[in-house]
């Protein structure tokens, strides 16, 4: 017999688990993200040919690789639903906030998975060295979460468009720019010897504020974006 269950969190986890299952069976986004990250890091490695890069340049390259790798894969969560025509059933059965939360959770896992690939590759091939691990991981955690929120929201907007790739980059870049600037600045400080955690207080505050604003705006606007 059917039993009525669950609040929005349980429903969102059901959607997240469905996406994980689908992804492992189709490799729709994982391959795109992983290949982009690996190829980019190798391309940079060959281009610099062992030349030492400044911490500023290393931090910038790290976030550029994370940003463009995420662009190549995170939009798929919504694009796939529209292209395979499963979005209609999803609209009929799941509330909008559940869909956004489930897709965000999935994109967060993908993005943290991307970080697990990118950072060791950077350490090996670009001689990327971190001085303050707590600060580095704090910046990475908040920055990646903000990146996932914005890309998930923009992915929902572009999923019905015909020129998805170009539109995704055009719409997401202005929204992501403040996050990238602060994340690069914070990462650079985390790579500098003798810098205390508190030295990046401003970057962390800006990143956290950005994250809160984007989460609130995304949940408020998603229903209109998804249903219209």
């Amino acid at each position: 017999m059917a039993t009525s269950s669950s609040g929005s969190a349980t429903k969102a986890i059901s959607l997240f688990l469905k996406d994980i299952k689908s992804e492992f069976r189709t490799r729709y986004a994982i391959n795109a993200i992983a290949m982009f990250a690996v190829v980019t890091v190798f391309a940079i490695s060959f281009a610099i040919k062992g030349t030492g890069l400044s911490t500023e340049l290393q931090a910038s390259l790290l976030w550029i690789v994370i940003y463009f790798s995420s662009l190549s894969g995170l939009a798929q969560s919504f694009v796939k639903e529209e292209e395979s025509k499963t979005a209609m059933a999803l609209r009929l059965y799941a509330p909008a906030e559940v869909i956004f939360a489930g897709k965000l959770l999935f994109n967060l896992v993908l993005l943290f998975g991307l970080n697990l690939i990118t950072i060791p590759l950077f350490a090996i091939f670009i001689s990327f060295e971190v001085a303050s691990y707590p600060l580095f991981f704090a910046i990475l955690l908040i920055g990646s979460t903000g990146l996932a929120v914005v890309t998930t929201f923009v992915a929902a907007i572009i999923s019905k468009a015909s020129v998805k790739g170009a539109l995704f980059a055009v719409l997401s870049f202005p929204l992501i720019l403040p996050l990238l600037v602060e994340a690069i600045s914070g990462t650079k400080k985390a790579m500098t010897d003798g810098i205390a955690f508190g030295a990046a207080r401003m970057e962390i505050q800006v990143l956290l504020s950005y994250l809160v604003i984007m989460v609130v705006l995304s949940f408020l606007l998603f229903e209109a974006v998804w249903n219209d």
Partner: protein
Amino acid sequence: MSLKLTIDGLAKEFPGRPVFSDISAVVEEGRRLVITGPNGSGKSTLVRILCAFNRPTRGSVGFEIDEKKLTHLEIRPHIGLVSPDMVLYDELTAIENLSFFAEVAGHRFEIPELERRLENIGLAGRGRDFVGSYSSGMKQRLKYCLALLREPEILILDEPTANLDERGKGLVDDIIRSHHGIVVIATNEKAELFYGDQFIRLGD
């Protein structure tokens, strides 16, 4: 329970092309509305508007359950939809599809119950197969299983017997005749016009 579907002065235009205009109807519990018309006359568009997937250019659609008016989004949990535009996940099994949609809608079904429902719709023993391996007729049967899963008050069927064999058409006949709420059927098949108590003819 009393049910009422009110379509009032509905019109839809795409840029530079009117699809239909001035569509009105009141459908009450136990009645069947058949939407018919040639290809491109807007049957599927009207179905999408009834399900609140598209907005009309003019006019409105209202649903009342026990005299309580529902907003266009509140109506969705009361709708069971079968449509060529609605596709289930090929990479999931039939049982995984049914469980997933039930869970995100706030219900939970035990697997034996889902297997029993699949058996009722002619998919006995195929619940653990990937939907991608199904024939188009089996996929259509699975859509019926999903549409009926939460016992909806309003059943909306766009091309209800598409891809079905004679036994499948018999199942659909049983489903339509035994449904106690409102049934909306969009079709071009002459045999399906006989289900209608009320009609909307598009493209006249």
